[in-house]
């Protein structure tokens, strides 16, 4: 068993037994379902909009090299500097070098899952650079010393009282149970940091090839401050975030908001067009973009699962996933939680270590129906299972399925085996038969009938 699987099983077992926490998460998502459905109803045809959004991403992803090249040409023409990073280590080194070259002292960062993927904060802190998260949820998670629970709602699992305690401990503020007051505490604390910071690090929701602009979507306004106030702006983005046309955003931005958060549009949608130009009075002096591969090209090379690169990180698949809701986001042990994480993590970090996430699914398909860009999520979990069985089959699975196949190939043996199974079922339920015991711990089995269907049918139709 891989280490990651052992940790997953342990955490999932603990969390799945925590009824209070599970109820809290379900309640937290209750408003989302309502708002999402209200907003979806405002579309003339949500399904057609999904087609259009999927097509916009498909068109860019299936021609990625050319579209990226076009984007980079326009981005550079706007005065930005592009850095290509093959993997996490290269991306960290590039960002550290920019910080060192510019003798940066303070860094402020807005929400960016790609930075979680490359463990950027650790690297910056180890190199002596202070870095503060400016998104409220990420700020709370940073104070807690915990990874994001959900890649859109990082601290959705934290109760208000716990946030108040956290602020009292770290910021010395008086306890409060008012969400507005808690937000104001964080806001007051963060405002000066934007002014003091030399570098602002952001992610990117979309890279627009046609104009060379970066699109960032947020609800708090913190990304705009992060990008605009410090003298250096570094954006970090996966290469798959590129789209061809500015017009593609007319469908992608509202769908991102509706599918992910039940909003008509996210509050702030900003297009960043390069550093401060001659004659302009504000904006960063330098604008860097780090374009990260980190095994995305491996996914690109797989035509069956390439559509996973369409992902716009809206989080809709997590919000509807019964696995996510019952084990929580932290149990996955991945940067990207939920169905999309279970699909792509084996590609990004290795199938052998991460295939268990594809196994930990009832394949209900709620994720696939929720995905605004039509990623065939639950079928990709099946594809991962198949690839894993081929790459590193477990002895148990081989013996079990070949044995099962030996039986079902022979109807007489199946009928005889069935008869023995039914006769011994009461006994089997008491013995430590691995799968049977796991089932019996929480569920009964129906009383085995004396005669099978085939026996009864044969009798009646003899």
């Amino acid at each position, binding site marked *: 068993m891989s280490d990651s699987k052992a940790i997953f099983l342990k955490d999932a077992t603990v969390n799945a037994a925590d009824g209070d926490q599970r109820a809290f998460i379900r309640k937290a998502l209750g408003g989302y379902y309502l708002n999402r459905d209200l907003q979806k109803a405002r579309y003339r045809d949500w399904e057609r909009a999904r087609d259009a959004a999927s097509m916009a991403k498909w068109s860019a992803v299936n021609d990625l090299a050319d579209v990226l090249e076009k984007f980079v040409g326009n981005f550079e023409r706007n005065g930005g500097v592009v850095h290509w990073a093959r993997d996490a280590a290269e991306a960290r080194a590039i960002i550290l070098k920019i910080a060192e070259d510019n003798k940066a002292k303070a860094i402020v960062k807005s929400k960016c899952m790609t930075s979680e993927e490359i463990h950027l904060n650790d690297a910056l802190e180890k190199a002596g650079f202070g870095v503060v998260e400016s998104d409220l949820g990420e700020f709370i998670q940073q104070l807690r010393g915990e990874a994001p629970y959900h890649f859109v709602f990082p601290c959705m699992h934290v109760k208000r009282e716990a946030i108040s305690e956290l602020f009292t401990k770290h910021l010395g503020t008086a306890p409060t149970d008012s969400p507005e007051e808690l937000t104001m505490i964080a806001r007051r604390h963060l405002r000066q940091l934007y002014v003091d910071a030399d570098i602002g690090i952001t992610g990117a929701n979309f890279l627009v090839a046609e104009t060379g602009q970066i699109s960032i979507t947020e609800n708090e306004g913190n990304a705009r401050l992060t990008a605009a106030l410090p003298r250096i702006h570094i954006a970090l983005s996966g290469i798959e975030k590129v789209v061809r046309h500015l017009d593609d955003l007319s469908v992608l931005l509202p769908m991102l908001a509706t599918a992910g958060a039940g909003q008509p549009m996210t509050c702030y949608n900003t297009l960043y067009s390069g550093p401060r130009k001659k004659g302009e009075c504000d904006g960063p002096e330098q604008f860097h973009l780090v374009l990260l591969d980190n095994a995305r090209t491996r996914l690109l090379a797989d035509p069956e699962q390439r559509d996973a690169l369409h992902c716009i990180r809206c989080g809709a698949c997590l919000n509807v996933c*019964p696995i996510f809701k019952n084990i929580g986001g932290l149990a996955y042990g991945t940067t990207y939680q939920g169905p999309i994480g279970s699909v792509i993590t084996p590609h990004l970090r290795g199938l052998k270590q991460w295939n268990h996430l594809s196994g930990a699914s009832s394949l209900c398909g709620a994720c696939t129906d929720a995905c605004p860009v039509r990623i065939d999520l639950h079928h990709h979990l099946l594809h991962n*299972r198949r690839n894993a069985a081929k790459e590193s089959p477990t002895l148990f699975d081989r013996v079990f399925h070949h044995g099962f196949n030996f039986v079902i*190939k022979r109807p007489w043996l199946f009928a005889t085996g069935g008869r023995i199974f039914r006769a011994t079922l009461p006994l089997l339920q008491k013995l430590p038969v691995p799968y049977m015991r796991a089932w019996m711990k929480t569920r009964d089995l*129906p009383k085995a009938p004396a005669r099978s*269907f085939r026996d009864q*049918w044969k009798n009646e139709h003899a």
Partner: protein
Amino acid sequence: MRVSLFVPCFVDQLTPQVGLATAKVLKRLGHEVEFRSAQTCCGQPSFNSGQWEVAREAAIRALAVFRGAEVVVGPSGSCVAMMRVFYPELLKGTPQAAEAADLAARTFEFSEFLVKKLGVTDVGAKFAKKVTYHDGCHALRELRLKEEPRQLLRAVQGLELIESEEGETCCGFGGLFSAKFPMISTAMVQVKGGALARTGADYVVSSDPSCLLQVGGWLSREGKPILPLHIAEVLAHDA
């Protein structure tokens, strides 16, 4: 019409009454019903476990078993989805691809067959009980069946249909998933089973006998006063 029954392996062995009820309803509607005894399992457990080579063998055997059948009808959204959706994928690019597509087009889930193929909603059943309906995920999302079973239930004399919360939520069965990840599967059935029990219905009805194993097994263990029943059993009830 001559209907060839597709009886899931676990229905054959554990809940034979579901297969018998399916045949009874079809016969009552005037159809000829056959059961080809060479059938065993559709191969879904192996397919879902990534053992596609093994599942492919099962698929090829099923093609042979049901060769020449006018229509194949199964009382399980999940096993029918295996034949309809996943056999074509398994056999893509093989010499059997065309036959898989042909079988997929001739294979129907029971409620789907009645409503969509035969155009029947009232099968002359009487069942004076309160029931709630559980959508199996394969029927709901692979076969896109939602209204069909409800239309059939609403036409049953005396039956009161109550919808539950968590209507489209998975019960957590997922085949071997329920035993490989029992803690997650149990958490899921707590959510779903709890919602079903809160309806106050006498029975939870589904077109998927595998979901009924899971839901029924949990409800029984928890001592909840609601029993699992397959839709064919409801529709077979005429007294």
